[in-house]
C-alpha cells in the first residue's frame, strides 16, 4: 500500500513537470477544433486514437494472460501510447539502411501496433509459443524483433540498445539515405554508461550520426522514484551538453508528441545530425508483473484523456468509441483462445540458431 501512495505522489510531481514544459516546441491549443489539435487532420487523430486503444487493450490483455497463468511474466507499455503510436506512424518502415531502424526497450507495444503488428503476435510472444514471430517462444513479452521493419531485438539489460543504435546510424550515414535510427529507453536507464556512450559517439564534430535519441521519463526506475536517481534538472540537459538538439515534451499528449517527432525527424533527415527528446509520460501498471501489474491511480491516462478531447470536439461519438474498445477486446480475447491451441517450441530446438545456418554448436557432436 505504501508503494501505491508513493507512486501517486510521484506521479503528481511528474505531471507538474510536464505541465511546466507544455509549451516546449508546440503551439498552444486554443478554442477551435483545429487549434485544439494543433492543426492535425481529423483522420489522423482518429487513427491515432484507434491505435492507442488497440495498444492499451492489447497490453491489458497481456496482463490478463499473465494473471490467468497463461504466461510467466509481463512487462509492457500501458501509459506510453501517446508516445509510442506517433513514433510508429512516423517511422519510415522497411528493411535495410534505407529505412529507419528502431532500437526499442521493453515498452514498445504502441509503436509496433502502429507499425502494423497484429495483436495475436504479441500474445504469441507472451505465451512463449513457437508461432511467436519475434523469438519463437524464447523471450519475454514486449521483447519484440521485426527485421522486416528494422526493429532490432529488444533485450532485458537496460540501455544496451543505445550503443547498438550507433552502428545502424553509422551505416545509414554511409548510405546517405536520409533514414535515421531511433533509440528508446527509460529515465532510470540513463544512469548506465551506454547512455553517455550514445551521446558521445552520436555528437562527435564532423561525425554526427542521424539518430533520434529518446528517453521516456515515467518518473520511475522499477520501484525507485526519479528523485532518488537523478541530480540533473532535465535528462535533456545531458544531451544539450553535447550540442545535440534537445527538447522535453509531454509524452502523454499524442498531438504534441506527433508534432515534436515530426519536427525532429525532419531535422535529422535534413542535417544528418542527432536530436534528443525527453518525453514525460505515465506508467499505469507499474514496472512489470514483478511489481504486481495492477492499475496505479493518480497517473494521467493518455488514452482516456485523448478520447475525452475527441469526444468533446465532436470528432468522435461515444458509441463509436465504445465500438472501438469492444472490437479490440474481442480480438484480444479470441487471439488468446487461439494461441492457447498453438504449440510451444520443442525441447530439441534449443540447439537451433546458436550459429547461422544451424551449424552444429553442440560440443558433444564436434
Amino acid at each position: 500500500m505504501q508503494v501505491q501512495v508513493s507512486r501517486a505522489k510521484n506521479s503528481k510531481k511528474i505531471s507538474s513537470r510536464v505541465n511546466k514544459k507544455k509549451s516546449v516546441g508546440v503551439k498552444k491549443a486554443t478554442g477551435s477544433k483545429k487549434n485544439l489539435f494543433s492543426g492535425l487532420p481529423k483522420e489522423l487523430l482518429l487513427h491515432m486514437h484507434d491505435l492507442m486503444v488497440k495498444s492499451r487493450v492489447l497490453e491489458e490483455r497481456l496482463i490478463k494472460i499473465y494473471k490467468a497463468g497463461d504466461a510467466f511474466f509481463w512487462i509492457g507499455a500501458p501509459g506510453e501510447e501517446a508516445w509510442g503510436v506517433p513514433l510508429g506512424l512516423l517511422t519510415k518502415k522497411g528493411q535495410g539502411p534505407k529505412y529507419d531502424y528502431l532500437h526499442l526497450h521493453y515498452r514498445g507495444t504502441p509503436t509496433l501496433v502502429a507499425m502494423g503488428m497484429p495483436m495475436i503476435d504479441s500474445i504469441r510472444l507472451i505465451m512463449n509459443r513457437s508461432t511467436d514471430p519475434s523469438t519463437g517462444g524464447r523471450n519475454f513479452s514486449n521483447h519484440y524483433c521485426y527485421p522486416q521493419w528494422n526493429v532490432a531485438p529488444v533485450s532485458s539489460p537496460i540501455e544496451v540498445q543505445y550503443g547498438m543504435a550507433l552502428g545502424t546510424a553509422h551505416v545509414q550515414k554511409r548510405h546517405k539515405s536520409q533514414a535515421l535510427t531511433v533509440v528508446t529507453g527509460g529515465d532510470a536507464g540513463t544512469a548506465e554508461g551506454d547512455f553517455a556512450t550514445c551521446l558521445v559517439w552520436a555528437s562527435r564534430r564532423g561525425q554526427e550520426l542521424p539518430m533520434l535519441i529518446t528517453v521516456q521519463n515515467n518518473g520511475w526506475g522499477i520501484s525507485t522514484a526519479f528523485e532518488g536517481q537523478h541530480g540533473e534538472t532535465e535528462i535533456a540537459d545531458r544531451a544539450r551538453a553535447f550540442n545535440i538538439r534537445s527538447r522535453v515534451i509531454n509524452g502523454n499528449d499524442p498531438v504534441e508528441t506527433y508534432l515534436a517527432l515530426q519536427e525532429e525527424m525532419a531535422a535529422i533527415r535534413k542535417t544528418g545530425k542527432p536530436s534528443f527528446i525527453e518525453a514525460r509520460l505515465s506508467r499505469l501498471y507499474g514496472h512489470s508483473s514483478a511489481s504486481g501489474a495492477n492499475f496505479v491511480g493518480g497517473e494521467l491516462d493518455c488514452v482516456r484523456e485523448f478520447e475525452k478531447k475527441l469526444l468533446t470536439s465532436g470528432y468522435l461519438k461515444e458509441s463509436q468509441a465504445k465500438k472501438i474498445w469492444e472490437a479490440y477486446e474481442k480480438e484480444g480475447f479470441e487471439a488468446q483462445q487461439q494461441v492457447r491451441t498453438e504449440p510451444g517450441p520443442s525441447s530439441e530446438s534449443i540447439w537451433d540458431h546458436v550459429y547461422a545456418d544451424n551449424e552444429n554448436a553442440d560440443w558433444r557432436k564436434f
Partner: protein
Amino acid sequence: MANMAQAIRMALHYGEAHLGVKDIFGQDVGAPLGGAFTATQGLKTTWNSPLDERGIIGMAMGIAMTGERCVAEIQFCDYIFNTIDLLKIAGNTLWVTNGQYPMPLVVMTPVGAGIRGSIYHSHSFDAWASRLPGWKVVMPSTPHDAYGLLISAIKDPNPVLFLIPKALMRVRGEELIPGEPREEKELKSMVDAPIGDRSKWKPRWPELQDLAIPIGQAQITRPGEQITVVSYGRHLLVCNQIADDLRSDGISVEVIDLRTIYPYDWQTVKASIQKTGRAIFVNEDTEVTNFGEHLAYRATQELFYELMARPLVIAGKNVPGIGLHPNLEDASIPQKHEIETAIRAVVAETP
C-alpha cells in the same frame, strides 16, 4: 616472411578489398598510429573510436545488424571485461530472435602475457571466451594461421573473437602467406609505415590471395607416439620446442595446435589421444575453470579406458593478475621447464 602484425594487416586489407569489410575501428586503430601493435597501419577503412570499449562493441553489433561487415578491436583484452554483457548479447541475438538477426562481426584483441605487461596488459581471455555461446573463438600461433583464420573470421556469418597472442606479434613464421614477397625487407618496405611523418605514406599491398583456414580445424604441428599435447597461441610454440628437444631423449610428443577454441576440433584431439594414451592441455589462462579442463574432462569421459595416464592441465596460476617483476610473471605463467617436466612425468606414468 611476415610477422603476425603484418599478417593481420594483410588479412584486413584482403577483407577490405575482397570481402566487403567497411569498418575497421577501435582505439588508435586508424591513422596516425595504426594500432598499438601496428596491425592496422595503412588500411583504407580504419578509424579511431572514442576510448570506450562498450561503444566499440555496441557500434560493431549495430553495424552487423545491417548486414555489413566490420572488424572491431579492443586494444588489450584486459579492457574487454566491461563489455561482457554486450558480448553475451552478441552471442545470443541470433538464438533469441529464432534465427532472424545474424551478428556477423569480428572482434580482435591481443591476449596473454610475455611482454612484461603487468596486471592490465597480460590477461588471457580464452577461458572467458569459451563461455560465450554463439561466438566462435580462434587464436593463431603463427602469422600464416593468423592470416587464414582472420579471413575465415571475416567470412563467417557469426560473431568471431580473434584472440591475438600479443607476445607473438613480432615473431615471423615459417610459411609464406599466399602473395607475400619472400624477402622480409621487401615486405617491410611495402606494408610497414615509416617512423616519423606518415602523412604521405601509402602501403603497396602485395597481390594477396585467399587463404581459408577453416574455423574448427586443428593442426598437428609435431607428430608423435607417446603423448598428446594440446595447446594454442604462444604456448603452442613452446610445446613445439619441447617436442623437438625431447626427441633426442627418445620421447615422442604429438603436438596439436587447436587454433579454434570453439567450436573445437575434437576429432583430431580424440584420434591423437587414442593413439598415444596420454594427454596434456597447455594454456596460460588461469587454471580454475580453464578451457583445458573441459578438454581434459571430455578426454576422461570418452576415452577413459584407452588412457595410460591421467590427463593433465597446465595453466596459469589462479592469482588475480600477472605481476610486473619477471619473477612474478614467470611464476604465474606456465614455463617451458615446467611443461617439459610434466610431459616426462606423464610419459613415465603407467596404469
